[in-house]
């Protein structure tokens, strides 16, 4: 099984107990596939019902493609300022 490394931050990093999570998914896939796979991982049940995802430093949609070499990150509710 292939996997994609996903960056997690703040409360999501606490949920997974890591800052990078290797998510088992066939590549290429979509953002929605990555999120679905992450919910099945230890700690994944702590994710909220809707999760924002960034691909290559830009907010992505559920249908956005994810392939080898893409930088994928889960973005918890932001709280800058």
């Amino acid at each position, binding site marked *: 099984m292939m996997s994609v490394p996903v960056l997690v*931050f703040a*409360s999501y990093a606490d949920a997974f107990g890591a800052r990078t999570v290797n998510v088992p998914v066939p590549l290429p896939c979509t953002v929605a596939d990555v999120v679905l796979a992450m919910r099945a991982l230890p700690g994944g049940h702590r994710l909220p019902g*809707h999760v924002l995802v960034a691909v290559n430093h830009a907010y992505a949609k559920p249908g956005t493609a994810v392939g080898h070499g893409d930088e994928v990150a889960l973005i918890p509710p*932001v*709280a*800058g*300022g």
Partner: protein
Amino acid sequence: MTSPERGALVQIVGSAIDLNRLVAHVQHDGVGAVATFLGTVRDVNDGRHVTGIDYEAYQPMAEAEMRAIAAELGAQWEGLSVAMVHRVGTLAVGDVSVAIACAHARRAPAADAMRTAIEALKVRVPIWKREHYAGGEWTWVDPTRGVVSP
């Protein structure tokens, strides 16, 4: 003097923010108004006594989003120059967490752009804060309280 074509200054930094550096960046001879904003750590939030805040950022994306905000402001107000710097790490009450400077020939665009910049930063830029409270508890702040944005 600096040129009005100078690009926006956007940065995530790990140490104290010097507002004068931002002002110097946006200043040039065509500027008639510089509007600045400082966000600081306050001692109470939602009725709880805050003792400090840890800020965390997804640095490359945070800087990309701040650059995008600066570009959007520049498209809205021609001739605007922008500097936005956010600090990460452990901050104490009173520390400056974010600084913004917007300069324009006229005061209204400078002030309006500054306000627009901080509001956009708070909803779009991937930065998080963990508040520490008297008594030792802490929590990651969720300003959306579960409502999805952006």
